[in-house]
């Protein structure tokens, strides 16, 4: 309601500037009453028109000369009053013309009010548009140009309406305003067979599908004809009705980042070779030595040799885990699926672990004849991780129980121990990279916190699930599922 009133009342819309209209008008009316009160008629139609034309003109001049409407209005009023006094002093006219003069004054006053209000309102609107919107546009353009990423804005037909400086720096050419993405292929063809702009534009895709296209990588011919890897994301801009009205695309230069990633991958490859080669030699030497000495040496020397053997295995596991974590990070953990018997795999793993475990007994009783299609080596790695953890956190002379169950389209495997147990707050965290259970007060256990993270990734990539059911002090039961 208030808004409607404001809209209907031009004076209200003028804000402070309304005084520039109100003051001269009231002084004009006051002047007329003053004349009547004195009984001297000094106005008649023709001169009243002249007077008001002058007042109107003066009001306008003053109004437009002052940004502050209040001051402009006061000055206009002072001029009007001064003019009346001049008329009162210099003129004296017939009483019979008083009525028509007052009517003229009122009529002209209304005309004056209307014109001034309209002009004032328009002017103010114009001012706001020119000042405000120009400011807004300048500010927006400054932001767009100083963005640390390349930016392209198109209309809903895919024609470029805005780009920024950073985009030019990344792609090496200025994409002209009006360039039609997806239609004009002059930039796509490029000069040397390499595109300066991606052939499949995510912008066009986002317009046609109405959905955002996130982080697509393209190889283009960048500045100085250098191979450049760019990452493009595009999102459609929709109006309230959900219609696509424009599209915005952000372009980042990934060349350097990809180069660093490649260097890191290369480093991992080299490190894997460099670490695994001496490990292989060590293992072979130890095997050879223990084979030679098995019937000759005393039990203490044999214990030492076994110790070296065990520690070498541990070192080997750590190196493998580190490399696996690195592979997961770089998306290079590959699987080779094959059909195998779950029972057989579990039995083999149990057998191998039980050989080096004296304290706890690993029991696998509930057997089912299930064949799964998965990476046998990796699933057995998950099994080993779960069992090794169970052994690590369980007191001696306790049982670790494995069970398998088929349910619908999945097979569920569980490993239950009678160990320390895990607080509920840590049930999710333990599957995070490099997370370890235990705090400063608690006894810490060896390990780098990689086993469960790797296991989770392996199971996740097999479209299965891995989780734990446990309470502090009441043992843990780890589950994983695999699709059949």
């Amino acid at each position: 309601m208030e808004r409607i009133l404001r809209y209907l009342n031009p004076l209200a819309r003028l804000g402070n500037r309304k005084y520039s209209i109100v003051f001269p008008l009231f002084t004009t009316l006051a002047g007329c009453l003053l004349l009547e009160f004195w009984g001297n008629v000094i106005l008649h139609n023709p001169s009243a028109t002249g007077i008001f034309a002058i007042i109107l003109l003066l009001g306008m001049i003053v109004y437009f000369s002052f940004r502050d409407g209040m001051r402009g209005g006061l000055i206009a009023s002072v001029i009007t009053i001064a003019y009346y006094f001049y008329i009162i002093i210099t003129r004296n006219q017939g009483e019979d013309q008083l009525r028509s003069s007052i009517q003229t004054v009122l009529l002209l006053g209304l005309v004056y009010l209307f014109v001034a209000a309209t002009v004032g309102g328009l002017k103010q609107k114009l001012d706001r548009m020119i000042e405000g919107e120009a400011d807004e546009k300048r500010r927006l353009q400054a932001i767009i140009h100083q963005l640390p990423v390349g930016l392209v804005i198109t209309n809903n037909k895919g024609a470029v309406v805005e780009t920024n400086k950073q985009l030019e720096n990344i792609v090496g050419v200025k994409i002209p305003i009006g360039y039609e993405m997806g239609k004009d292929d002059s930039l796509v063809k490029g000069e040397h067979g390499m595109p300066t702009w991606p052939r499949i534009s995510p912008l066009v895709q986002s317009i046609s599908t109405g959905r955002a296209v996130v982080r697509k990588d393209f190889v283009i011919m960048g500045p100085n004809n250098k191979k450049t890897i760019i990452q493009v994301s595009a999102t459609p801009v929709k109006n309230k009705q959900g219609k696509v009205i424009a599209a915005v695309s952000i372009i980042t230069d990934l060349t350097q980042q990809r180069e660093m990633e490649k260097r890191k991958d290369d480093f991992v490859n080299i490190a894997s070779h460099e670490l695994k080669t001496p490990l292989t030699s060590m293992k072979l030497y130890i095997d050879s030595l223990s084979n030679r000495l098995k019937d000759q040496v005393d039990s203490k020397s044999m214990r030492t040799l076994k110790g070296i053997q065990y520690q070498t295995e541990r070192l080997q596991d750590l190196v493998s885990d580190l490399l696996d974590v690195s592979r997961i990070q770089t998306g290079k953990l590959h699987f080779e699926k094959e059909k195998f018997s779950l029972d057989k795999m579990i039995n083999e793993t149990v057998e191998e672990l039980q050989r080096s475990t004296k304290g706890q007994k690993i029991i696998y009783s509930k057997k089912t004849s299930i064949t799964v299609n998965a990476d046998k080596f990796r699933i057995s790695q998950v099994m080993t991780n779960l069992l090794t953890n169970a052994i690590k956190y369980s007191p001696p002379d306790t049982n670790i129980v494995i069970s398998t169950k088929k349910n619908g389209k999945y097979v569920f495997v569980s490993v239950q121990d009678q160990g320390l147990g895990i607080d509920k707050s840590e049930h999710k965290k333990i599957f995070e990279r490099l997370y370890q259970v235990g705090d400063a007060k608690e006894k810490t256990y060896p390990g780098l916190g990689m086993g469960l993270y790797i296991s989770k990734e392996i199971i996740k990539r097999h479209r299965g699930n891995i989780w734990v059911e446990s309470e502090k002090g009441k043992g843990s039961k780890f589950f994983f599922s695999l699709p059949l």
Partner: protein
Amino acid sequence: MSKNILIVDDDEGILDALSMVLEDAGFMVETTSKGNQTFKKINKFKPNLILLDVLLSGEDGRFICKMLKQDNETREIPVVMISAHPSAKTSIKEYGADSFLAKPFSTEVLLKTINEFTS
């Protein structure tokens, strides 16, 4: 009759350890750390099996394997490739390798793999 095994690896430690283990197991062993010496060694030594590292200094073991498998005289000799990368297992098949050992492997696995081709 003992079988001959040629080991091609640029790491002296591996060559020494492998020789020791294989000699213990009753094989005759010959080694070279240079890939380009492979054919020369084969002519002299007539191996029953070749253990070939994928990553040799300055050379690619896989190409040596391919050459061995393209040559009528060496085609029949089983080649077991060794690599620290488990993923190499798939790629070496394209080069004609007969089997693969991922480092670090145990003596047990090594002998099992070799015996598949020599016994």
